[in-house]
Protein backbone atom coordinates (compact mmCIF):
# COMPACT_ATOMS: atom_id res chain seq x y z
CA UNK A 1 0.00 0.00 0.00
CA UNK A 2 1.45 3.35 -0.95
CA UNK A 3 2.21 6.03 1.60
CA UNK A 4 -0.33 8.51 0.24
CA UNK A 5 -3.20 6.06 0.56
CA UNK A 6 -2.10 5.06 4.04
CA UNK A 7 -2.16 8.71 5.10
CA UNK A 8 -5.56 9.32 3.52
CA UNK A 9 -7.01 6.41 5.45
CA UNK A 10 -5.45 7.61 8.70
CA UNK A 11 -6.76 11.14 8.18
CA UNK A 12 -10.23 9.84 7.34
CA UNK A 13 -10.07 7.68 10.46
CA UNK A 14 -9.69 10.86 12.51
CA UNK A 15 -12.80 12.31 10.87
CA UNK A 16 -11.18 14.36 8.09
CA UNK A 17 -13.98 14.52 5.52
CA UNK A 18 -11.81 15.93 2.72
CA UNK A 19 -9.51 12.93 3.05
CA UNK A 20 -12.50 10.61 3.08
CA UNK A 21 -13.91 12.31 -0.02
CA UNK A 22 -10.61 11.52 -1.75
CA UNK A 23 -11.00 7.87 -0.78
CA UNK A 24 -14.54 7.83 -2.16
CA UNK A 25 -13.31 9.32 -5.42
CA UNK A 26 -10.58 6.69 -5.62
CA UNK A 27 -12.79 3.66 -4.94
CA UNK A 28 -16.26 4.64 -6.14
CA UNK A 29 -15.60 2.99 -9.52
CA UNK A 30 -14.82 -0.42 -8.03
CA UNK A 31 -17.59 -0.21 -5.47
CA UNK A 32 -20.26 1.01 -7.87
CA UNK A 33 -19.40 -1.46 -10.64
CA UNK A 34 -19.36 -4.32 -8.14
CA UNK A 35 -22.81 -3.34 -6.84
CA UNK A 36 -24.16 -2.87 -10.37
CA UNK A 37 -22.93 -6.30 -11.47
CA UNK A 38 -24.64 -7.76 -8.40
CA UNK A 39 -28.05 -6.04 -8.55
CA UNK A 40 -28.27 -5.01 -12.25
CA UNK A 41 -29.91 -1.64 -11.49
CA UNK A 42 -28.06 1.68 -11.65
CA UNK A 43 -30.18 3.48 -9.05
CA UNK A 44 -30.01 0.62 -6.58
CA UNK A 45 -26.29 0.17 -7.21
CA UNK A 46 -25.69 3.86 -6.54
CA UNK A 47 -27.65 3.67 -3.29
CA UNK A 48 -25.69 0.61 -2.21
CA UNK A 49 -22.35 2.19 -3.12
CA UNK A 50 -23.16 5.41 -1.25
CA UNK A 51 -24.35 3.52 1.79
CA UNK A 52 -21.19 1.42 1.72
CA UNK A 53 -19.05 4.56 1.93
CA UNK A 54 -21.23 6.13 4.63
CA UNK A 55 -20.92 2.93 6.67
CA UNK A 56 -17.18 2.81 6.02
CA UNK A 57 -16.81 6.38 7.28
CA UNK A 58 -18.46 5.65 10.61
CA UNK A 59 -16.81 2.26 11.13
CA UNK A 60 -13.37 3.39 9.95
CA UNK A 61 -12.10 4.16 13.48
CA UNK A 62 -12.71 0.47 14.27
CA UNK A 63 -10.60 -0.73 11.32
CA UNK A 64 -7.33 -1.84 12.88
CA UNK A 65 -5.16 -2.42 9.82
CA UNK A 66 -5.06 0.31 7.19
CA UNK A 67 -3.77 -2.06 4.52
CA UNK A 68 -6.97 -4.11 4.81
CA UNK A 69 -9.14 -1.10 3.87
CA UNK A 70 -10.09 -2.19 0.33
CA UNK A 71 -11.05 -5.78 1.16
CA UNK A 72 -12.89 -4.47 4.23
CA UNK A 73 -14.81 -2.06 1.98
CA UNK A 74 -15.52 -4.96 -0.40
CA UNK A 75 -16.99 -6.95 2.49
CA UNK A 76 -19.31 -4.04 3.32
CA UNK A 77 -20.47 -3.79 -0.30
CA UNK A 78 -21.03 -7.55 -0.48
CA UNK A 79 -23.21 -7.46 2.62
CA UNK A 80 -25.23 -4.49 1.37
CA UNK A 81 -25.81 -6.21 -2.00
CA UNK A 82 -27.01 -9.26 -0.09
CA UNK A 83 -29.49 -7.13 1.90
CA UNK A 84 -30.70 -5.41 -1.26
CA UNK A 85 -31.28 -8.70 -3.10
CA UNK A 86 -33.14 -10.08 -0.10
CA UNK A 87 -35.46 -7.07 -0.11
CA UNK A 88 -36.01 -7.45 -3.87
CA UNK A 89 -36.83 -11.14 -3.49
CA UNK A 90 -39.33 -10.38 -0.75
CA UNK A 91 -41.02 -7.78 -2.97
CA UNK A 92 -41.05 -10.21 -5.88
CA UNK A 93 -42.62 -12.94 -3.75
CA UNK A 94 -45.40 -10.62 -2.59
CA UNK A 95 -45.98 -9.54 -6.18
CA UNK A 96 -46.09 -13.12 -7.40
CA UNK A 97 -48.57 -14.34 -4.80
CA UNK A 98 -50.81 -11.38 -5.63
CA UNK A 99 -50.67 -12.11 -9.36
CA UNK A 100 -50.38 -15.87 -9.30
CA UNK A 101 -52.86 -16.69 -12.07
CA UNK A 102 -51.61 -14.33 -14.82
CA UNK A 103 -48.02 -15.16 -13.96
CA UNK A 104 -48.56 -18.85 -14.57
CA UNK A 105 -50.38 -18.19 -17.82
CA UNK A 106 -47.55 -16.15 -19.26
CA UNK A 107 -44.89 -18.55 -18.09
CA UNK A 108 -44.72 -21.02 -21.02
CA UNK A 109 -44.31 -18.20 -23.52
CA UNK A 110 -41.45 -16.55 -21.65
CA UNK A 111 -39.77 -19.94 -21.36
CA UNK A 112 -39.94 -20.30 -25.11
CA UNK A 113 -38.38 -16.89 -25.58
CA UNK A 114 -35.65 -17.89 -23.21
CA UNK A 115 -34.52 -20.92 -25.14
CA UNK A 116 -34.39 -18.96 -28.36
CA UNK A 117 -32.48 -15.94 -27.07
CA UNK A 118 -28.81 -16.00 -26.39
CA UNK A 119 -28.07 -14.03 -23.23
CA UNK A 120 -25.53 -11.27 -22.87
CA UNK A 121 -22.89 -11.69 -20.19
CA UNK A 122 -24.84 -9.40 -17.84
CA UNK A 123 -28.14 -11.22 -18.35
CA UNK A 124 -26.42 -14.55 -17.84
CA UNK A 125 -24.72 -13.24 -14.72
CA UNK A 126 -28.10 -12.34 -13.25
CA UNK A 127 -29.24 -15.95 -13.76
CA UNK A 128 -26.60 -17.24 -11.35
CA UNK A 129 -27.31 -17.75 -7.67
CA UNK A 130 -26.23 -14.85 -5.50
CA UNK A 131 -23.39 -16.90 -3.99
CA UNK A 132 -21.97 -17.90 -7.37
CA UNK A 133 -22.34 -14.39 -8.79
CA UNK A 134 -20.58 -12.88 -5.77
CA UNK A 135 -17.65 -15.28 -6.04
CA UNK A 136 -17.25 -14.75 -9.77
CA UNK A 137 -17.44 -10.94 -9.51
CA UNK A 138 -14.82 -10.95 -6.78
CA UNK A 139 -12.53 -13.11 -8.93
CA UNK A 140 -12.98 -11.86 -12.51
CA UNK A 141 -14.01 -8.26 -11.93
CA UNK A 142 -12.35 -7.27 -8.67
CA UNK A 143 -9.34 -9.51 -9.27
CA UNK A 144 -9.12 -11.06 -5.79
CA UNK A 145 -7.27 -14.34 -5.30
CA UNK A 146 -9.14 -17.41 -4.05
CA UNK A 147 -7.71 -17.03 -0.55
CA UNK A 148 -8.67 -13.34 -0.43
CA UNK A 149 -12.21 -14.26 -1.51
CA UNK A 150 -12.34 -16.97 1.17
CA UNK A 151 -11.36 -14.31 3.68
CA UNK A 152 -13.85 -11.70 2.45
CA UNK A 153 -16.78 -14.14 2.35
CA UNK A 154 -15.60 -16.11 5.39
CA UNK A 155 -15.90 -19.47 3.60
CA UNK A 156 -13.39 -22.30 3.01
CA UNK A 157 -10.99 -22.10 0.06
CA UNK A 158 -12.49 -25.23 -1.51
CA UNK A 159 -15.92 -23.61 -1.49
CA UNK A 160 -14.54 -20.57 -3.33
CA UNK A 161 -13.02 -22.82 -5.97
CA UNK A 162 -16.20 -24.81 -6.52
CA UNK A 163 -18.47 -21.75 -6.55
CA UNK A 164 -16.38 -20.12 -9.27
CA UNK A 165 -16.21 -23.36 -11.23
CA UNK A 166 -19.99 -23.89 -11.10
CA UNK A 167 -20.63 -20.22 -11.84
CA UNK A 168 -18.55 -20.41 -15.02
CA UNK A 169 -20.21 -23.63 -16.14
CA UNK A 170 -23.71 -22.17 -15.80
CA UNK A 171 -22.66 -18.87 -17.36
CA UNK A 172 -21.31 -20.73 -20.37
CA UNK A 173 -24.52 -22.76 -20.59
CA UNK A 174 -26.70 -19.63 -20.48
CA UNK A 175 -24.64 -17.85 -23.10
CA UNK A 176 -24.43 -20.67 -25.60
CA UNK A 177 -28.05 -21.76 -25.16
CA UNK A 178 -29.72 -22.36 -28.52
CA UNK A 179 -26.44 -22.39 -30.44
CA UNK A 180 -26.89 -26.01 -31.46
CA UNK A 181 -30.28 -25.25 -33.03
CA UNK A 182 -29.36 -21.97 -34.69
Amino acid at each position, binding site marked *: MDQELFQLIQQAKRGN*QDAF*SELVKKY*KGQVFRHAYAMVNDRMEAEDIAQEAFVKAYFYLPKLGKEYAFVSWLTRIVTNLCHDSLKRQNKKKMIFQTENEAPHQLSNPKSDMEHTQLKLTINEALQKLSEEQRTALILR*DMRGYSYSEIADILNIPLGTVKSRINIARASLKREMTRGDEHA
Partner: protein
Amino acid sequence: MHEYMGELLSPYIDDELNGEERRLVEDHIKTCKQCQEEVEELRFLKAQMQSFYQGIDIPDISFEEAVIRKIQTIEQEQQEVFSWKFWAALAVGMCVIISVLLTLSPFLYACIRVLYTLFNVGARIAHAVMIIALDMPYLTGALIITTLILIIISGWSVSRLLGTKTTG
Protein backbone atom coordinates in the same frame (compact mmCIF):
# COMPACT_ATOMS: atom_id res chain seq x y z
CA MET B 1 -14.42 -32.13 -21.66
CA HIS B 2 -12.89 -34.86 -19.54
CA GLU B 3 -14.41 -35.64 -16.19
CA TYR B 4 -11.21 -35.55 -14.17
CA MET B 5 -10.19 -32.22 -15.71
CA GLY B 6 -13.52 -30.62 -14.78
CA GLU B 7 -12.49 -29.15 -11.47
CA LEU B 8 -9.02 -28.11 -12.60
CA LEU B 9 -9.64 -26.01 -15.70
CA SER B 10 -11.41 -23.15 -13.93
CA PRO B 11 -8.67 -22.67 -11.28
CA TYR B 12 -6.13 -23.23 -14.07
CA ILE B 13 -7.18 -20.08 -15.93
CA ASP B 14 -7.15 -18.22 -12.58
CA ASP B 15 -3.58 -19.40 -11.98
CA GLU B 16 -4.71 -20.97 -8.70
CA LEU B 17 -3.28 -24.48 -9.19
CA ASN B 18 -0.20 -25.84 -7.49
CA GLY B 19 2.76 -26.87 -9.64
CA GLU B 20 1.78 -30.51 -9.92
CA GLU B 21 -1.83 -29.79 -10.88
CA ARG B 22 -0.79 -27.18 -13.40
CA ARG B 23 1.60 -29.60 -15.12
CA LEU B 24 -1.15 -32.18 -15.24
CA VAL B 25 -3.48 -29.74 -17.00
CA GLU B 26 -0.80 -28.46 -19.37
CA ASP B 27 0.19 -31.98 -20.40
CA HIS B 28 -3.43 -32.94 -20.91
CA ILE B 29 -4.47 -30.01 -23.06
CA LYS B 30 -1.50 -30.54 -25.34
CA THR B 31 -3.15 -33.69 -26.59
CA CYS B 32 -6.85 -33.14 -25.83
CA LYS B 33 -8.56 -30.74 -28.21
CA GLN B 34 -11.80 -30.80 -26.25
CA CYS B 35 -10.22 -29.59 -23.02
CA GLN B 36 -8.14 -27.09 -24.96
CA GLU B 37 -11.36 -25.61 -26.33
CA GLU B 38 -12.83 -25.58 -22.86
CA VAL B 39 -9.88 -23.56 -21.59
CA GLU B 40 -10.30 -21.15 -24.51
CA GLU B 41 -13.99 -20.71 -23.72
CA LEU B 42 -13.30 -20.12 -20.04
CA ARG B 43 -10.69 -17.52 -20.91
CA PHE B 44 -13.10 -15.84 -23.31
CA LEU B 45 -15.76 -15.78 -20.60
CA LYS B 46 -13.32 -14.22 -18.16
CA ALA B 47 -12.39 -11.57 -20.73
CA GLN B 48 -16.08 -10.84 -21.29
CA MET B 49 -16.62 -10.43 -17.56
CA GLN B 50 -13.75 -7.99 -17.42
CA SER B 51 -14.88 -5.96 -20.42
CA PHE B 52 -18.43 -5.80 -19.06
CA TYR B 53 -17.00 -4.54 -15.76
CA GLN B 54 -14.83 -1.94 -17.47
CA GLY B 55 -17.81 -0.79 -19.56
CA ILE B 56 -20.00 0.14 -16.58
CA ASP B 57 -20.20 3.94 -16.36
CA ILE B 58 -18.91 5.32 -13.07
CA PRO B 59 -21.05 7.97 -11.31
CA ASP B 60 -19.70 11.53 -11.53
CA ILE B 61 -18.56 13.89 -8.78
CA SER B 62 -22.10 14.26 -7.41
CA PHE B 63 -21.55 10.79 -5.95
CA GLU B 64 -18.81 11.96 -3.55
CA GLU B 65 -20.88 15.01 -2.69
CA ALA B 66 -23.92 12.86 -1.90
CA VAL B 67 -21.83 10.59 0.34
CA ILE B 68 -20.39 13.53 2.30
CA ARG B 69 -23.87 15.10 2.56
CA LYS B 70 -25.27 11.85 3.97
CA ILE B 71 -22.41 11.64 6.48
CA GLN B 72 -23.03 15.21 7.62
CA THR B 73 -26.77 14.62 7.95
CA ILE B 74 -26.15 11.59 10.15
CA GLU B 75 -23.63 13.51 12.28
CA GLN B 76 -26.16 16.31 12.71
CA GLU B 77 -28.89 13.85 13.66
CA GLN B 78 -26.55 12.25 16.19
CA GLN B 79 -25.91 15.67 17.75
CA GLU B 80 -29.61 16.41 17.81
CA VAL B 81 -30.30 13.08 19.38
CA PHE B 82 -27.63 13.88 21.97
CA SER B 83 -29.12 17.27 22.89
CA TRP B 84 -32.58 15.78 22.76
CA LYS B 85 -31.39 13.12 25.18
CA PHE B 86 -29.85 15.78 27.41
CA TRP B 87 -33.09 17.74 27.67
CA ALA B 88 -35.12 14.58 28.14
CA ALA B 89 -32.83 13.49 30.98
CA LEU B 90 -33.14 16.90 32.58
CA ALA B 91 -36.95 16.84 32.34
CA VAL B 92 -37.08 13.32 33.78
CA GLY B 93 -34.81 14.37 36.65
CA MET B 94 -37.01 17.32 37.49
CA CYS B 95 -40.12 15.16 37.39
CA VAL B 96 -38.54 12.66 39.78
CA ILE B 97 -37.59 15.36 42.27
CA ILE B 98 -41.03 16.96 42.16
CA SER B 99 -42.86 13.68 42.54
CA VAL B 100 -40.64 12.67 45.48
CA LEU B 101 -41.45 15.97 47.16
CA LEU B 102 -45.14 15.51 46.45
CA THR B 103 -45.28 12.00 47.88
CA LEU B 104 -43.31 13.05 50.98
CA SER B 105 -45.30 16.26 51.49
CA PRO B 106 -47.84 14.86 54.09
CA PHE B 107 -44.88 13.67 56.18
CA LEU B 108 -43.01 16.96 55.80
CA TYR B 109 -46.23 18.88 56.62
CA ALA B 110 -46.69 16.78 59.78
CA CYS B 111 -43.09 17.43 60.85
CA ILE B 112 -43.50 21.14 60.38
CA ARG B 113 -46.74 21.11 62.39
CA VAL B 114 -45.13 19.21 65.29
CA LEU B 115 -42.19 21.62 65.35
CA TYR B 116 -44.53 24.57 65.20
CA THR B 117 -46.64 23.22 68.08
CA LEU B 118 -43.53 22.54 70.20
CA PHE B 119 -42.25 26.02 69.52
CA ASN B 120 -45.67 27.48 70.41
CA VAL B 121 -45.87 25.52 73.68
CA GLY B 122 -42.34 26.56 74.64
CA ALA B 123 -43.09 30.20 73.90
CA ARG B 124 -46.27 30.11 76.01
CA ILE B 125 -44.50 28.47 78.96
CA ALA B 126 -41.77 31.09 78.82
CA HIS B 127 -44.38 33.77 78.58
CA ALA B 128 -46.29 32.38 81.60
CA VAL B 129 -43.10 32.07 83.70
CA MET B 130 -42.24 35.67 82.89
CA ILE B 131 -45.70 36.88 83.98
CA ILE B 132 -45.54 34.87 87.22
CA ALA B 133 -42.04 36.10 87.96
CA LEU B 134 -43.04 39.71 87.34
CA ASP B 135 -46.21 39.37 89.43
CA MET B 136 -44.31 37.86 92.42
CA PRO B 137 -41.11 39.88 93.16
CA TYR B 138 -40.72 38.06 96.56
CA LEU B 139 -40.61 34.74 94.85
CA THR B 140 -37.71 35.92 92.78
CA GLY B 141 -35.91 37.11 95.85
CA ALA B 142 -36.65 33.88 97.68
CA LEU B 143 -35.40 31.89 94.72
CA ILE B 144 -32.16 33.86 94.55
CA ILE B 145 -31.54 33.43 98.29
CA THR B 146 -32.31 29.69 98.17
CA THR B 147 -29.92 29.30 95.24
CA LEU B 148 -27.14 31.15 97.06
CA ILE B 149 -27.66 29.04 100.22
CA LEU B 150 -27.52 25.85 98.16
CA ILE B 151 -24.28 26.97 96.43
CA ILE B 152 -22.66 27.79 99.77
CA ILE B 153 -23.70 24.44 101.32
CA SER B 154 -22.39 22.46 98.39
CA GLY B 155 -19.10 24.43 98.37
CA TRP B 156 -18.61 23.75 102.12
CA SER B 157 -19.40 20.05 101.78
CA VAL B 158 -16.95 19.69 98.85
CA SER B 159 -14.12 21.35 100.82
CA ARG B 160 -14.94 19.17 103.85
CA LEU B 161 -14.79 16.07 101.71
CA LEU B 162 -11.40 17.11 100.29
CA GLY B 163 -10.17 17.92 103.81
CA THR B 164 -11.03 14.49 105.24
CA LYS B 165 -9.24 12.90 102.30
CA THR B 166 -5.91 14.75 102.90
CA THR B 167 -5.93 14.18 106.69
CA GLY B 168 -7.16 10.62 106.53
